[in-house]
């Protein structure tokens, strides 16, 4: 048993108040019920970088929500779920997931193809220390929506690799939901952050991570993402729609060593095969 979190509620609240006063974000905070998570230097920098002069003013939880556990069950694989409401499905162009206090804050940038009806995106991320996690969506009509959540966790980037031996590098598994509207995609990859130590040798482990993902059907890209060291070991992506997903589905993965992996799912729903249709890894380099 390991303790994994302590309450830092007081400094957190103080920081939020400061952010509120200094950045004039008070109105945003109260309007969304979501602005309690403190700002940070990293976020202020990234906001200037990606969203200069943008109003990240928001609609409400029905448009987009971000689910993150306040106390993570695993700092190295903290589950995040982004959900899009009826008004948002089909009208999202891009989503960035930012973890303010991670060494590489931009965890993933998802580009949604025009017309793709993405209702939910789930992923698992490393959390290095207590932080705000943000999702910023750009709509097809050029508006920006942001949701954030505070996560109590530490050590996710330096956590030692798991001792899991099953599966092979680049293997991709598909697990559709019984109604065919969601797909859990599991990618066997160490996704080494560059901040881990090999417990046997004591030597640092070089960064080796999934850098790009493409989710397509019959050659048509539905969703792709640029990703980095903030994804968990064995990255997981769960995509849901408000309609049955198309079939067949292909997932193409490129990693930081420029290895390419491909997994394909033919269309059999869960219940036919025991849980998943596995797909082989493609060639490398």
């Amino acid at each position, binding site marked *: *048993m*390991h*303790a*994994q*979190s*302590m309450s830092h509620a007081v400094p957190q609240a103080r920081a939020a108040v400061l952010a509120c006063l200094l950045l004039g974000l008070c109105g945003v905070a109260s309007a969304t019920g979501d602005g309690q998570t403190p700002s940070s230097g990293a976020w202020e920098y990234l906001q200037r970088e990606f969203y200069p002069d943008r109003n990240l003013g928001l609609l409400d939880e029905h448009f987009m929500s971000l*689910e993150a*556990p306040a*106390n993570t*069950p*695993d700092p190295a*694989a903290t*589950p995040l*779920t982004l959900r899009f409401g009826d008004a948002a499905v089909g009208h999202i162009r891009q989503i960035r997931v930012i973890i303010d206090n991670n060494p590489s804050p931009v965890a993933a940038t998802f580009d949604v193809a025009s017309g793709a009806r993405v209702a939910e995106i*789930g992923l*698992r991320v490393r959390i290095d220390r207590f932080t705000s996690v943000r999702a910023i969506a750009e709509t097809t009509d050029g508006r920006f929506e942001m949701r954030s959540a505070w996560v109590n966790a530490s*050590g996710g980037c330096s956590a*030692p690799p*798991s*001792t*899991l031996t*099953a*599966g092979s590098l680049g293997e991709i*598994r598909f*697990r*559709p*939901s*019984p109604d065919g509207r*969601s*797909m*859990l995609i*599991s990618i*066997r990859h160490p996704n080494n952050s560059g901040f881990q130590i090999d*417990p*046997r040798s004591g030597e640092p482990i070089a960064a080796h991570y999934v850098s790009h993902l493409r989710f397509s059907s019959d050659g048509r890209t539905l969703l792709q993402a640029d990703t980095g060291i903030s994804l968990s070991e*064995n990255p*997981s992506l*769960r995509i849901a729609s408000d309609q049955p997903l198309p079939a067949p589905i292909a997932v193409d993965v490129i990693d930081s060593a420029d290895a390419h992996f491909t997994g394909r799912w033919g269309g059999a729903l*869960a*219940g036919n095969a*025991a*849980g*998943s249709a596995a797909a082989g890894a493609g060639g490398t380099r």
Partner: protein
Amino acid sequence: MQHRAIRPAARCAPFPHALSWALIALLLQPGAIATAGAPDFQLQQLAPGVFVHIGQQLALDAPGHDDIANIGFIVGTRCVAVIDTGGSVRIGRALLAAIRQRTRLPICYVINTHVHVDHVLGNAAFAPERPKFVGHAALTAALARSRDFFLQQYPEDLDQPPSAAQIIGPDITVDQTLELELGGRRLSLRAWPLAHTDCDLTVLDNGSGTLWTGDLLFRDRLPAVDGSASGWLRVLDELARLRVTRAVPGHGPIASDLSMALQPERRYLRALIDGVRDQLARGGSMQQAIAQVAAAEQPQWLLWDSTHARNVAHVYEQMEWQ
């Protein structure tokens, strides 16, 4: 003596000097500080020469979190074996003081049942006794992985300033089994495959039929899965076949019927595995799994909230690739 004003002093008033000297004497003896600092350190004698201190069922971040594991010792005619040392050097010293109230025999072995903080951080209290530290063959590596974490998360549970050297690993490791002779009594140690952790070790005192299970058995407190839930179930099958008089769990009350005492833990682990398998078969997310898996078990266990989500996450990450 202004600071005395903050304490009710009525009963002390007649003996101010005597008390001061007593306090100074206590402060000069580290061993005595521990006893003074833990006046409630209770011991039970389970059988002649077999003593256990029952830990409290508290969360790992609660006050008193260093005293949550069951720890104890066994006395032979030649020497003493300690089994787990508690979650702080302070608790380790309280255990050492309790031993010294009962015997002057040397402490020849300090056995750690696994790597977790609540069982090993008291090791440093025993270093001056020059025992052999004993653990599972994988304990050395497990401690190497944990030292930084312990130093960051539990610095106040070590002597100040905290140092990695206080987190003591084994001198003698156990691959499969090992017999230790204490004089007139023989301990049988057994190393187990991946279960609660990757370094679980049990200790059987053959004379009294007392099995120390370490955290392979949690009673009342929700089991924490840090190794493999399915591996743990296999180990429970083997434990259930052992004929012992009593079992000392890692957490919770002493069990007189081991096989019966294993049942709740077996039921929870089974529900955990079946639930996660079902979620994965339906393409469920980790969050859905945390919310739904084994939910019916919740009323049966203490400290559910702090541990169950971690268990589900751990099993989910493993089963995703089975």
